[in-house]
């Protein structure tokens, strides 16, 4: 795919994602019914859960692109990896902000050691390391390689972190834990959640492609300035 096409696809997807997201907001404010026990605060779920899902998708993609980058050493794979990782950071941050807000209202504390919340927090730090490593080597190519290693180890560590934090909670049960999602969700809430998942995913893919085109342009600029300076 040519770089123009990628840019166009990214723009279109991002636009669709934004409009779709507007529809989701409308649904979650005016259409969906209010949950009985938690009241209005439960509507944070329509942002929180899709943000978590999108950040996991993004980090997974970043690790996948990183692994193939180490194998094939194609610069484009590294650009894709960093674009996905940045998207992952954004959505993980959204998840980490909405989680405590919801938690404070729903069960009175900002932070609970809820496994998915903990996992996302640790992932956020793993990818903070990814960006720190990337930007702190003299030789940028080395930074890319090292960052790829961080992403791969991070991704393969996820199952262990996930199992251990779930298992930790089973040993130390939380006082009140309400499981908001799952098949027990009433129909209109499920519809809104699925709509939101779709909107976030499409928005992420659009942003990812836009970010990827930007990275392409940057490297092109780099090459051009190098040629003029020689």
């Amino acid at each position, binding site marked *: 795919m040519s770089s123009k096409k990628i840019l166009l696809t990214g723009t279109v997807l991002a636009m669709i994602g934004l409009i779709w997201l507007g529809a989701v907001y409308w649904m979650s404010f005016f259409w969906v019914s209010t949950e009985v026990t938690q009241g209005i605060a439960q509507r944070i779920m329509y942002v929180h859960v899709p943000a978590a899902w999108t950040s996991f998708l993004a980090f997974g993609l970043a690790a996948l692109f990183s692994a193939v980058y180490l194998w094939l050493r194609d610069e484009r794979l590294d650009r894709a990896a960093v674009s996905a990782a940045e998207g992952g950071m954004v959505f993980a941050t959204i998840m980490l902000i909405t989680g405590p807000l919801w938690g404070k209202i729903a069960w009175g504390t900002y932070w609970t050691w809820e496994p998915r919340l903990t996992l996302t927090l640790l992932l956020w730090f793993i990818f903070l390391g990814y960006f720190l490593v990337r930007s702190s080597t*003299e*030789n*940028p*190519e080395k930074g890319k390689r090292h960052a790829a290693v961080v992403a791969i180890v991070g991704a393969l560590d996820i199952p262990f972190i996930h199992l251990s934090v779930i298992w930790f909670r089973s040993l130390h049960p939380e006082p009140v834990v309400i499981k908001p999602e799952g098949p027990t969700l009433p129909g209109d809430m499920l519809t809104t959640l699925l709509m939101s998942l779709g909107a976030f995913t499409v928005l992420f893919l659009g942003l990812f492609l836009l970010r990827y085109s930007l990275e392409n342009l940057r490297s092109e600029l*780099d*090459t051009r*300035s*190098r040629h003029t300076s020689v």
Partner: protein
Amino acid sequence: MWPGTQDWGGWLTSVSVPAHPEADEKSSTNPVLRAQGLVREYGSVIAVDGIDLSLAKGEFLTIFGPNGAGKTSLLALLAGALRPSRGQVWLRGEALDFGEVEWHRRIGVLSHQTFLYGHLSAEENLRFYGQLFGLSDVDDVVRDKLQHLGLQERAASLVRDLSHGMRQRLALARALLHDPDIVLLDEPYTGLDPSAALVLQGVLSDLRDGRRTVVMVTHNLSEGVALATTVAIMNCGRFVWQGKRAELGNDFGQFYHGVIEGHG
């Protein structure tokens, strides 16, 4: 000075035996060390920008050039320590993949860093590297090398207690421990006192035994030219001049500066 007592691990026979009889003829004229289109980029910086070279058995190539010309990067590419951004290196006609450990078995590298451990004795250092290279008769080889370089008295001394000249001699012994037939020297004269330079000089001329192929990078114009069979001048990642030593006039210093300035 460097008796070929080491076991070659049979690689001469096992690796370079040609598949066809007519190829045999070819392999004797084939270059030992060949590189084509070698490029190495560090991000937006190009250190090595398209180097071609071809060296036969017994050739001694000296590379001169100003700082930052890419000489050290080129040596690292030939040594298999640096992954080429583009281009390929062949040893005896065999294309080499980066990360192929056999590459290192055939090449000896001496840099201005000694690669030695200060807290190990001279003998322990050599034994350590001898074992890494999988030499079958480490004890004999180490003893011979120490004797050759006049270090047998200090064999048990920690390297940190040795004088700089002795360390440099030991570094030479380390580089040639596995009797490589390709030797890469990265500014071996850096930081040497006159007596150590003399020892180095002797060892380097012994390397011209017709059996080995040597590539040396140096700032020392007179020594570099005296040893060379082939000379290259490198600037901005490229060979700006390359030729036989015989083609050079009397005043190499003037010629060198002419070439560099003419290029700049």
